[in-house]
């Protein structure tokens, strides 16, 4: 085989691999959008994020190792771009919220005398308050809550996306949920104080 025909063959193989990579990556577009929507909170921002992520993925396709978890590789790009965008927007360093017990919010909201009361008690948490409380969490804990509790990824999938051990995800999720409840309790107090003044 001549050098020229060898180069041509290599180019053909590379082109074939690229096409296959792109086809496989596109099958995860809905997953990418699902993550992006939870991380950005907006459909429009999510579409921009997905498009940016795919552009980056297609440009750096040769950095992906065939046979490994392409879905996690791609969603990691989505996540990293969202983090970068968040850092640009954030002006002040995030303080780590206080972390109370699992029952802290339940007790602060007065508990319930019957299980059915939980529905109305929980509804007292406004959407704005919940969104703000989640946004107040430090990035690592917020990501765990977003991926597992909001986007319904498994612990393993979330660990693959964030490239951390599964034990780290479980720990961050547990602490993130506690921090979220502490933040929610604070929003209720703030609302009550504002109403009283």
């Amino acid at each position, binding site marked *: 085989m001549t050098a020229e025909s060898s180069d041509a063959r290599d180019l053909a193989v590379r082109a074939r691999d690229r096409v296959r990579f792109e086809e496989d990556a596109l099958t995860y577009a809905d997953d990418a959008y699902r993550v992006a929507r939870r991380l950005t909170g907006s459909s429009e921002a999510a579409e921009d994020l*997905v498009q940016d992520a795919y552009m980056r993925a297609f440009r750096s396709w040769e950095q992906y190792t065939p046979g490994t978890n392409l879905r996690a590789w791609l969603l990691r790009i989505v996540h990293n771009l969202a983090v970068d965008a968040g850092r640009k927007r954030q002006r002040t360093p995030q303080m780590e919220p206080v972390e109370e017990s699992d029952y802290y919010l339940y007790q602060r909201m007065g508990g319930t005398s019957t299980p059915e009361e939980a529905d109305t008690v*929980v509804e007292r948490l406004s959407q704005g308050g919940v969104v703000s409380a989640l946004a107040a969490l430090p990035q690592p804990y917020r990501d765990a809550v977003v991926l597992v509790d909001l986007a319904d990824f498994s612990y393993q999938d979330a660990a693959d996306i964030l490239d951390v051990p599964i034990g780290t995800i479980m720990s961050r999720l547990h602490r993130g949920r506690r921090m979220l409840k502490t933040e929610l309790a604070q929003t209720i107090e703030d609302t009550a104080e504002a109403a009283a003044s």
Partner: protein
Amino acid sequence: MQAYLDKLLSEGDALVIEQHLAVCSECACAYRFEVKLRQHVKACCGGAADQDHCRDELLAKLKSCCGGAADEQPSA
């Protein structure tokens, strides 16, 4: 409770929890609150799961980046 809600417990341990929730109203109330809280947070922040699909226009844009076209476009 978190482990039970996350379905991390063994079958035997989960059964113990279920049996306890059936007879302890205080724990049953706290459990129901936790379930509803998770649903509420998800609804407030997550949006409907049936909206988790790329629009055709977005898919078309992604496909237009295939075949080396992404290399020619400005970086994000």
